């Protein structure tokens, strides 16, 4: 499974999102590769990803990709990330 964490610049928010998503996935026992990406390369990287994590403002910029786009409001809230990832993960 491939997950892409997207932010505007690729050094800040997406890195935090990637770290916390990895933490959640470890707890859930899910094997997945999480990559951080800036908005410029996100669309390309999201083509072969199953899940894209991003913020409300950036979601429209990612456009139409096959991956499920999940919007995270609080990047530090592991519960929010857990709930939203769980809902998107295949059974």
């Amino acid at each position, binding site marked *: 499974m491939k997950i892409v964490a997207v932010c505007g610049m690729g050094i*800040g928010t997406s890195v935090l999102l990637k770290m916390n998503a990895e933490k959640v996935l470890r707890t859930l026992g899910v094997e997945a590769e999480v990559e951080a990406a800036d908005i410029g390369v996100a669309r390309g990287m999201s083509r072969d990803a199953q899940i894209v994590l991003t913020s409300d403002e950036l979601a429209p910029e990612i456009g139409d990709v096959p991956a499920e786009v999940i919007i995270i409001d609080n990047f530090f809230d592991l519960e929010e990330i857990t709930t939203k990832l769980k809902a998107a993960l295949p059974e």
Partner: protein
Amino acid sequence: MSESLADELSDDAIMLNAPAADWRDAVRRAGAALTATGSTTEEYTAEMIAAVEELGPYIVIAPGIALAHSRPSPAVLNTGISWVSLASPIEFGHAANDPVRLVVGLAAVDHDSHLATMSNLAGVLSGDLDRLLGATNPEELRALIRENSQ
């Protein structure tokens, strides 16, 4: 860049209870602190503001917290971080996480050099924000950060 957030935040990198008129002013303060530590030139501050003008207030990543940053550029001299707590909360225009009480400024020379500090930052900021914002001097703030880094 040191791996520890507390070590990274020198006195120059910290502004506590800073007054700010609006979100641009708040980001400017975080940029001024980065410049004061020698991490960036003043141009980087303009780049951080331009990033929000272009992409929206997505840098407000959690309730009350903005992570002001732009991308690696010639305006970044060294990877660095700054910490600006605001005297009064400021609206950034974020639907879920306004108003902002803490602006963390981030400058990175590449995509990897700051990862240990970011991991430390993520741990610290998932803790009690009110307690961190209660710090009245840099030494107290560093002590609280160290406490939350365990």
